[in-house]
């Protein structure tokens, strides 16, 4: 996977987490995952269509998800409150939207579909046909994982273009 496609997501997650949690977040791990996706906590998925296709999953430890929900709600939130997954979707929207902005401004043309909560039946399917890059950020409230599986299609179509022979 191209690092220039991943870099904006790292920067965006770092910036948004640091701003919202009012404390720096550190990258604890970066790994490739070929096996099926395993959810760690509350997860939201965002799909891409266009020159870049694929999906990104933002997956948060329950404590981190609850903390973000409390910050966004501006009040103490219970871990079982339905607002918690909603907050994870909104955070995914901010992180991925900011990264997509940078990529589009660099000339990559693609569309983002609205974030949705990753449901149990989607979990296995989410990792079945693509190698993913997984970033793990550590915050004081727990881990935040970004699972990125994207393909740059424009080059492939260029490579498939007819070649004059003879």
């Amino acid at each position, binding site marked *: 996977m191209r690092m220039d496609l991943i870099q904006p997501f790292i920067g965006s997650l770092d910036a948004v987490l640091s701003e919202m949690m009012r404390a720096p977040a550190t990258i604890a791990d970066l790994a490739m995952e070929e096996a099926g996706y395993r959810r760690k906590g509350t997860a939201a998925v965002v799909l891409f269509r266009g020159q870049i296709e694929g999906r990104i999953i933002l997956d948060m430890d329950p404590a981190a998800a609850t903390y973000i929900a409390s910050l966004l709600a501006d009040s103490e939130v219970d871990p079982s409150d339905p607002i918690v997954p909603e907050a994870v979707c909104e955070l995914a*929207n901010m992180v991925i*939207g900011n990264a997509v902005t940078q990529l589009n401004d660099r000339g990559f043309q693609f569309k983002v579909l609205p974030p949705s909560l990753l449901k149990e039946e989607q979990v296995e399917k989410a990792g079945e046909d693509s190698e993913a890059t997984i970033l793990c950020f550590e915050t004081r409230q727990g881990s935040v994982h970004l699972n990125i599986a994207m393909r740059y299609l424009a080059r492939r179509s260029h490579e498939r273009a007819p070649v004059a022979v003879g």
Partner: protein
Amino acid sequence: MKQFEPLTRKSDSQPVRYLVVDDSVFARKSLARLIESFGGQIAGEAGDGVSAIAEYARVKPDIVLMDITMPQMEGIEAVERIVQEHPEARIVMVSSVGYQDNILAALQKGARHFVQKPVKPDALYEIIRYVLNDDGVTAGAGEEHAR
């Protein structure tokens, strides 16, 4: 939460009325809290572009805060449709997706301004004040304050 100098309508001194359009309930709640801190009133809410068009016609708000990426109909198309029917509409785009082509498209369709998420309250307040003052809807709270 920080309280801002209330923005009121010049015509009747009533709070500015907002239509908030975002598919995320959470984002709508966050914006509603900000609007409250600006001294405004929520006239209506919508979760997609189609509902936004209907809701605009129903509540005739002073200003609309509109997300871009939404199901059914995206924000930019909704702006175009609303402005076609209501040329006086004041719409500020509030979205995490803020690349130049998107902003340009929104402005070309009739949006007045753009604010990127995560929303900074001071920035949103200033933009709303600018848009409303520009149309003479508000008395220009900042100008009065300066005097």
